[in-house]
């Protein structure tokens, strides 16, 4: 059995809530299958108050082995590095101190969500709470535990980034660890599991035909590609949201809104509005990953010139006006 301890700090608890959406099989069955025993989880466990503190203390004392430490939420270092913005209830001790001590004991340390990985939403604006990730502060190595931190297995913090995380990103990572199949080659240079971070949100996007022809949506609810006007970063965002759907058959882009690249460090502070595309001389500033600008401009202007009327019209409509057809088009 692998012991798992889960703690929350400067976040919203949404990654835990998302985890409860795990299906085929459900979360409890998945944990059973992996031989993972919950030492404590804030939403799921019986123990409260002094019982929890006793568990944490036994882990720190070495009386209970800690195989997997999952941390959700940013590490709140403020004010002035004291950690006083989050004292763990009943203890008077900053959560960052608990996490430091527990991370010393953990075989593997997992940051669940972009907050715990990089700072995330809690680090937005002027970052008054001095929010940081476990081993990254934004895209810089460091964070609470420092660039040199290694868990007992010799690994860096595994960053299951996302805001929130897809339940299966988390369960697969836990399974990999529990089955002793994790190695450093399984994560990218930002510590994200490659099982999902080797894909782009663009892959499998239902708007791909509109993208090919640069037939773009102009307002929320319209069917066209959202890259040109609506701020969509799906061609740059590392995640498999359109391959591995959310809540049955959903994703951000299928839900009618832009990908905001929530698996990336510092996504919380876009250089422009989240749902408007920044352009220079009419050309979107952020180009698809690996795409040379000149080629993008050339291909875009070529495909725009070739856009079928069907796509041009449907792109700015809430529903299909012209279905694909070899017949002469008639407006419905």
């Amino acid at each position: 059995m692998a012991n798992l301890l889960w703690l929350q700090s400067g976040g919203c608890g949404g990654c835990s809530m998302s985890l409860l959406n795990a299906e085929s099989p459900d979360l409890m069955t998945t944990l059973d299958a992996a031989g993972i025993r919950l030492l404590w989880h804030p939403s799921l466990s019986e123990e409260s108050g002094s019982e929890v503190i006793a568990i944490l203390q036994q882990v720190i004392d070495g009386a209970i082995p800690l195989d997997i430490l999952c941390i959700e939420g940013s590490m709140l270092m403020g004010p002035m590095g004291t950690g006083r913005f989050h004292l763990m209830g009943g203890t008077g001790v900053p959560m960052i101190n608990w996490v430091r001590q527990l991370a010393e004991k953990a075989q593997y340390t997992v940051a669940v969500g972009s907050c715990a990985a990089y700072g995330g939403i809690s680090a937005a604006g002027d970052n008054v709470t001095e929010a940081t990730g476990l081993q990254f502060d934004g895209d810089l190595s460091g964070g609470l535990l420092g660039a040199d931190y290694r868990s007992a297995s010799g690994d860096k913090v595994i960053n299951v980034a996302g805001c929130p995380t897809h339940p299966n990103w988390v369960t697969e990572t836990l399974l990999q660890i529990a089955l002793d199949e994790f190695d450093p080659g399984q994560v990218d240079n930002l510590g994200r599991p490659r099982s999902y971070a080797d894909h782009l949100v663009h892959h499998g996007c239902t708007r791909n035909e509109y993208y090919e022809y640069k037939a773009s949506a102009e307002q929320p609810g319209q069917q066209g590609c959202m890259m040109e006007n609506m701020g969509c970063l799906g061609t740059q965002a590392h995640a498999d949201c359109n391959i591995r759907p959310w809540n049955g058959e959903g994703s951000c882009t299928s839900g009618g809104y832009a990908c905001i690249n929530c698996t990336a460090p510092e996504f919380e502070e876009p250089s422009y509005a989240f749902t408007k595309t920044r352009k220079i001389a009419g050309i979107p500033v952020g180009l698809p990953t690996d795409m040379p600008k000149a080629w993008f401009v050339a291909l875009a202007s070529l495909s725009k010139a070739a856009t079928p009327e069907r796509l041009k019209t449907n792109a700015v409509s809430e529903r299909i006006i012209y279905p694909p057809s070899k017949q002469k088009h008639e407006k419905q």
Partner: protein
Amino acid sequence: MSRILVGPFNRVEGDLEITLDIADGRVESAKVNSTMYRGFEQILQGKNPLDALVYTPRICGICSVSQSVACAYALADAMQMGMPRNGELCTNLILANENMADLLTHFYLFFMPDFARPVYAAQPWYETVARRYRAASGEAAREMLPARAEFLHLMGLLAGKWPHSLSIQPGGSAKPVEAHDRLKMLAILAGFRRFLERRLFGDTLETIVQLTSAAELSQWAAQKPWQSSDLRTFLHLSQQLQLDQLGATTVPFMSYGNYPLEGERLFRPGVIDAQGTRTPLDSNQITEDLSHAWLTGQDRPQHPELGVTQPSLENQQGYSWCKAPRLDGQVMETGALARQLNNGHPLMMDLAARSGANVHNRILARLLELAIVVPQMERWARQIDPSERFCLHSAMPDSAIGVGMVEAARGSLGHWLSVEKGRISNYQIIAPTTWNFSPRDSQGIPGALEQALQGTQVMEGEKDPVSVQHIVRSFDPCMVCTVH
């Protein structure tokens, strides 16, 4: 007199600590500490107003959509725009999907597992109850999680994902529903209804909704053994443990009203006092008091439109990061019980007239709401017309103010937005648990939970009194929303 510090609480969303002063085996006074500050109101300063749709849902992973809807309403108010009928229907369905999932999560994962604690091992019902509701390993959680996950497939169809969607817009929904989506929704709702009727209620939703008095409820419960459904089990436990005597408050109940459709709301707004007198809600009378919070910047209580959020540990009286919201200077209790009382549901009116606000009535009002809202969701889904508009568009003026008020599962949530020069110049949020778990105000009046805990019996040597656990969870607190 002795003092105990209880925390960290789990099976509440976020972190919580309570200081109890105990004399003669009873709580003499309680101080509720919301232990974490993240500063969303500071983060939102200077942002593009529409970016609030990205930030505010991330205040909370369990009330994410409620935050989105409050934000969209505030933006729509500032932009002076409304939603088309389809937009209202979709927004109501998405909000109800989250709220109903939350009510279910609260009952099965957060509230009921406390009855499986060893402290109750000598009770005649213990074996049955522990087997079904024990935290993490009980059979109820294993049945409920797949039902919840499948119910949340509505989010996949209507909102892309849950939590943290961006489909809810000031002008409606950015996800037009196609004809086949609508049919799928009806099928998902039918599946969820089946779970509720078979496991939770042991009867049709319509039968539950039509119960009009405490006597009818008792009669209904007696028709079958107490083990035959989760509601009957709860009623049995509640009777055995006298949960209607636990966690009483006498403060007024407030609801902002919920689920608007073409000018009418399914649940009406209002304030109802302990004597049952109902008055309209005047949101201009809402203020926030910082006297016992680790905050500064206001020398007196302010309406949230003028509110300031500035952390400071200088306040010697401070014991929480939570502000103290008041309506016309009064403490309010908010949540499902407040909603059903303001809406005049006869069963809850009768129960409240008999025993007021307490653990029993709070939990029952939540379950009743599931029976009321799920059939309504079926009607909303049928009313969607895929050939009509889902979203209208408008521009944000350079200077505007807007208010968004909504009911999350756990109570009243308000957003107050000011825009100047096209940017957010102030954004203040009062969440349900800000009301319920408020600290004292400058008059020294304790918040709703602080009052509910007074007089609670504590057994000799209890470090984490089980009665306190029941009372705290009867409010279904969301601590991450509370301070934000």
